C-alpha cells in the first residue's frame, strides 16, 4: 500500500483506535483516557496537515476495496473532502478539550468518549467517501454513533430527544438508500466525479433523475435540517453541550450539507443539475429554511434552542450557495461550511459555559452575565456578530460571496433573503448581547457551580476553546486573502469544479 493509500485510512484510524480502547477503559482511568483522546486528536491534525500539503500540490489520495461484485468502498481525499476533514479535525481537537472539562466527574465518561471518537471517525469517513455507497455506510454509522451521545444523560427528556432524533434520521436514511440503489441500478456505482457523474452518461430519463434527486436530497436533508425535515434538531438539544457543539458545528448537520454539496457537484454536476431544473427548487427550499429558522429562533427563550434554530437557518446558507449557479455562489457556500462551523461552535461552547458555571439555560436568565463572565461573553459576542454578518467576521465574508453569487446567477431575490436573515439574526442576538453587557445581574445565579478564582471566571478547559474559536472567527476574516485561509481553499475547489466544466 502506497502512502497515497494509507494516509486516508490513517486519518480514520486516528480516532477509531483510541475510541475502541477507551470503550474498554474503566471509569477511573482519567489520565489514560485524556491522553488517548488528545493523542488521537493531535495525530489526526498532523495527518490532515500532510494531506493538505499533498492535495494542494496536486497529489491524489485514495483507496478502493471491493465488498461484492459491483459494490466498492472507495476513499478519495480530494480538495472538497479536505475542506470538511480539516474543519472536523481542528474543531474536534477543541471539542475534546472542552468535553474533558465539561464532563469532569460526570458518569459514564468512557462510554461517552468512546462514542465521541466513533462519531468523528464516521465524519471522516463521510468526508473522504469516494462514492455514494461509502458515503451511505458512514452516514448511517454517524446516526448510530450519535444516538448514545444524545441520550447520554438517561433522563426522560433525553430518551425522548433520542427517539425523535432516530425517527428522523433513520427515515432519512431509508430515503437516501432508496435513491442510491435506484441510481446505482440506472447508472452504475455512484462515484463522486469532478464535474458530475451523471453529466457524462447519456440517455437517462430526466423525470427519473429528478425523482432520484428528490429522494437523495430528502435523505441528506434530514441531517442538514432543511425545512420541513428539521424537527429533530431542537429536540436533540437535551444532549450535553459538547455533544450539541459537535452535532451542530462539526458532524451531523455539516455531514448533511456536505452530502448536498457532493450530490449536486459530483453526482449530477452543477450544469447538468441546472439543465434539469433542480437548482431553483433547491434554492427556494434553502431560502424558506433560512427565513423560517431565524423566525423560530426569535421566539425561543431557551438559549440552546435559540441557537438550534439559528443553525437550521445558517446551514441553509450553504445549500443556497450550492444552488446558486456559478463559481461565486459555490465559493460562498463552501466557505460558509467552514465559517459557520467555527462561529456556531463558539456560541455553543459559551452556552455550555453559562450552563455549567452558573446554571443558566434561558435567555431571560442572562442579565449582566457579561460582568461575571466577561471573556466568555466576549467570545459569544464575536460569534453572534459573525452570525449577523457584521464586518471583520467570518460571517461577513460568506455573506459577501453569497450575495455576489446570487446576483451572478440572476437570483437577486436571494440577496433579499440574505439581508432579511441578517436582520432577523440581529433581532435575536442583539437583545442577548444587550442583556449580557448592559443589564444588571440578579442577586444570585440559578445554580453557581464554579466560583470565580481571581481573574479566572470558569475552568480553563471550558474557557480556552471558545476563546480560540472566537479568535479564529476573526482570523479567517482578517486573513481571508492569504493563501491558507478557508476562503482560499474554497476558491481552489471552485476553480477545479468549474474548470472541468468549461473544458
Amino acid at each position, binding site marked *: 500500500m502506497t502512502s497515497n493509500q494509507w494516509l486516508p485510512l490513517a486519518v480514520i484510524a486516528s480516532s477509531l483506535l483510541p475510541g475502541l480502547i477507551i470503550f474498554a477503559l474503566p471509569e477511573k482511568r482519567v489520565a489514560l483516557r485524556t491522553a488517548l483522546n488528545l493523542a488521537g486528536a493531535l495525530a489526526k491534525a498532523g495527518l490532515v496537515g500532510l494531506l493538505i500539503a499533498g492535495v494542494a500540490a496536486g497529489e491524489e489520495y485514495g483507496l478502493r476495496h471491493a465488498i461484492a461484485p459491483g459494490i466498492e468502498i472507495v476513499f478519495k481525499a480530494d480538495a472538497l473532502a479536505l475542506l470538511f476533514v480539516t474543519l472536523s479535525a481542528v474543531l474536534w481537537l477543541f471539542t475534546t478539550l472542552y468535553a474533558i472539562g465539561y464532563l469532569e466527574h460526570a458518569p459514564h465518561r468512557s462510554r461517552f468518549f468512546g462514542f465521541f471518537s466513533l462519531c468523528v471517525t464516521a465524519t471522516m469517513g463521510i468526508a473522504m467517501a469516494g462514492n455514494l455507497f461509502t458515503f451511505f455506510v458512514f452516514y448511517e454509522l454517524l446516526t448510530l454513533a450519535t*444516538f448514545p451521545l444524545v441520550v447520554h444523560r*438517561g433522563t426522560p427528556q433525553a*430518551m425522548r430527544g433520542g427517539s425523535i432524533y432516530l425517527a428522523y434520521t433513520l427515515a432519512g436514511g431509508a430515503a437516501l*438508500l432508496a435513491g442510491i*440503489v435506484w441510481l446505482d*441500478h440506472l447508472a452504475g456505482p455512484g462515484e463522486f466525479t469532478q464535474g458530475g457523474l451523471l453529466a457524462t452518461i447519456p440517455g437517462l430519463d430526466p423525470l427519473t433523475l429528478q425523482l432520484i434527486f428528490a429522494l437523495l436530497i430528502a435523505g441528506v436533508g434530514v441531517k442538514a435540517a432543511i425545512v420541513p425535515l428539521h424537527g429533530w434538531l431542537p429536540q436533540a438539544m437535551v444532549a450535553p453541550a459538547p455533544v450539541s457543539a459537535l452535532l451542530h458545528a462539526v458532524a451531523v448537520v455539516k455531514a448533511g450539507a456536505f452530502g448536498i454539496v457532493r450530490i449536486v457537484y459530483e453526482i449530477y454536476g452543477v450544469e447538468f443539475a441546472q439543465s434539469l431544473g433542480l437548482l431553483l427548487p433547491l434554492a427556494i427550499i434553502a431560502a424558506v429554511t433560512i427565513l423560517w429558522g431565524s423566525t423560530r429562533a426569535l421566539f425561543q427563550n431557551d438559549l440552546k434552542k435559540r441557537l438550534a434554530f439559528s443553525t437550521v437557518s445558517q446551514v441553509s446558507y450553504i445549500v443556497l450557495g450550492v444552488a446558486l449557479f456559478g463559481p461565486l455562489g459555490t465559493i460562498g457556500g463552501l466557505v460558509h461550511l467552514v465559517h459557520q462551523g467555527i462561529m456556531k461552535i463558539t456560541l455553543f461552547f459559551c452556552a455550555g459555559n453559562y450552563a455549567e458555571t452558573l446554571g443558566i439555560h434561558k435567555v431571560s436568565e442572562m442579565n449582566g452575565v457579561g460582568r461575571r463572565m466577561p471573556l466568555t461573553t466576549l467570545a459569544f459576542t464575536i460569534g453572534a456578530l459573525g452570525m449577523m454578518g457584521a464586518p471583520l467576521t467570518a460571517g461577513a465574508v460568506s455573506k459577501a460571496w453569497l450575495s455576489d453569487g446570487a446576483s451572478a446567477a440572476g437570483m437577486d431575490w436571494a440577496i433579499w433573503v440574505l439581508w432579511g436573515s441578517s436582520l432577523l439574526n440581529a433581532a435575536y442576538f442583539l437583545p442577548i448581547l444587550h442583556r449580557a453587557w448592559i443589564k444588571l445581574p440578579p442577586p444570585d445565579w440559578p445554580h453557581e457551580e464554579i466560583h470565580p478564582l481571581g481573574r479566572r471566571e470558569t475552568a480553563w478547559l471550558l474557557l480556552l476553546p471558545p476563546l480560540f474559536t472566537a479568535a479564529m472567527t476573526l482570523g479567517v476574516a482578517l486573513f481571508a486573502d492569504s493563501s491558507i485561509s478557508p476562503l482560499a481553499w474554497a476558491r481552489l475547489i471552485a476553480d477545479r469544479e468549474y474548470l472541468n466544466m468549461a473544458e
Partner: protein
Amino acid sequence: MSPLLDPLAWLILLPLLWATLAFVAADRHGPALALAGIGAQLLCVIALAGDVASHGSNGHLAGGWAEPLGIRLVADGLSLVMLLLTQGVALALALYARSYFSRATPPAFWPLTGFLLAGMNALFLSGDLFNLYVTLELVGLAAVGLVAAGGGAAQIAAALRYLLATLVGSGAYLFGVALIYGSYGTVSASLLGTLITAEAPLAVWLAGGLMLTGLLLKTALLPFHFWLPPAHGGAPAPVSALLSALVVKASFYLFLRLWLGPFAALTEALPGLAQVPAALGAAAILWGSWRAIRADRLKMLVAYSTVAQLGYLFLIFPLLGTGALALQAGILQATAHGLAKAAMFVAAGTLIKVGGSDRVLGVAGAAAHLPVSLFAFALAGVTLMGLPPSGGFLAKWLLIDAALAAGQPWIVVVALSGGLLAGIYVFRVLRLAFRRPTAHDDVPLPQRPAALLEWTAFALAAGSVLIGLGAAPLLALIAGVQP
C-alpha cells in the same frame, strides 16, 4: 478420496456419534463431547469447502450402493454456505450453553442438540426427496424435544403445538413425495428437475403444492407462524437461538431448493405464483414487527422479530428470474440473520439471567452493568435493521437492486419499511438500556455473569457485521449455484 475419509459422510456420522455418547454418559460430559464434535465437524466443512471450490460440487454414495436404493449425498456452493453457518453458530452456542447451564442442564439437552445437528447436516447434503423427508423429521423431532426439555407446562404446550404443526408439515411433504414417485418412479432431485415439465399431470402440481406448503408450515411463514413465538420465546436461550437461527433456515433452504430445482418448470409456468410467498413474506414483516413492538417479554420480542425477518427471505421469489442477485440476497440475509438472531437470543438470555426479570422493562439501565451483552444486542439489531456495514445491509442492497431490475418496486418499499419497523423494536430495548434506572426498576444483581456468556454473543454479532464487509467469497459460492 477414500470413502472412509469423505467429509460428507463424517458430517452426518460425527454428530450422531457424540450425541449417542452424550446420551449414554453423564450430563457433565455433554459439553466436552459437543465441543469436540462440533469442532471436528467444522474442520470437515472446511475440507469440503476445498473440494467444492476446486470441483464445483462433491458427491458421495453411502455404502457404495447405487441409487435408487442407495442414498446419494451431494454438496454444492449453497449447501456449503448453510453447513458453514450451522457449524459456526452451533459451536458458539455450545460454548454459551456450557456456561449458561452451569447449574442445571435440561435433561437430554446435549444429545438432542447432537441429533439436531446430524439431521441438519444430512438435510443440507441430501439429494433425494425421501431422504430429505427423513432428515426433516429428525430435525423436527429433535427441535420439539429441545423445546420441551425440562420445561414446565407452558413449554410442554408450546412443544405440543410445534410438534403437531411440524408433523402436519412433514406429513404433507411425504404425501407429495408419494405422488411424485407414483408419477415418475424416482425421487432424485436432480433427475426430477429434468423430468418435470410444465405439462406435468395434476398429481405433480398437487404434490408440489403440498410439499411447498408443508415446508412453509415448518418455516413459520405467515399464516403458519402461530407455533413459533411460544416455542422460541419460552425455551431456554440456547435452545431459542438454535431454533431461530438454524432450524427454520433448514426448511427455508429446502423450499428454495425445491422451487429452483425439481419444481422449476412449474413455478416458471405460473409467473403469478411467485407473488404468493412474497406477499405472505411482506405480511409477515409487518405483522411480526408489530407484535415485536408490542411485546411485553424480551424473548417474545426476539421471537416475533424472527417471524418478521423470515418474511424477508420470501421476498426474493418473484425476483429469481433476473440472475443471481436475488438468490445472493436471500442466502446472505439467511446467513446474516442466523448469526444476528443467535447473538440476540444469547444476549437476551444473559440479560434475563443476570437481571432476573424476563420482561422488556427489566432491561432498564443494563448499559451500566452488562455493556458487552448490550453492545452485542445492538450490533445484532443493526443487522436486523439492515444498516451498514452489516450483512443485513448488504442483503438489503442486493434485494433492492434485484427488485428494481425485475420491475417490482413494491418490494423495495416493503424492505425499507421493514428496516424502519425493526428499528422501532430494537431501539425500544436499547433506549431502555441507556435509561437512568429509576427507583421502580432497580433490580439487584445476583452475580457478574461469566465472561463467556457475554463474549459469545459479541462474537456472533460481530460475525453478522463482518459478513457485510467480506461477503465476496460467500457471494461467489452462492452465484455458482445453478438456479
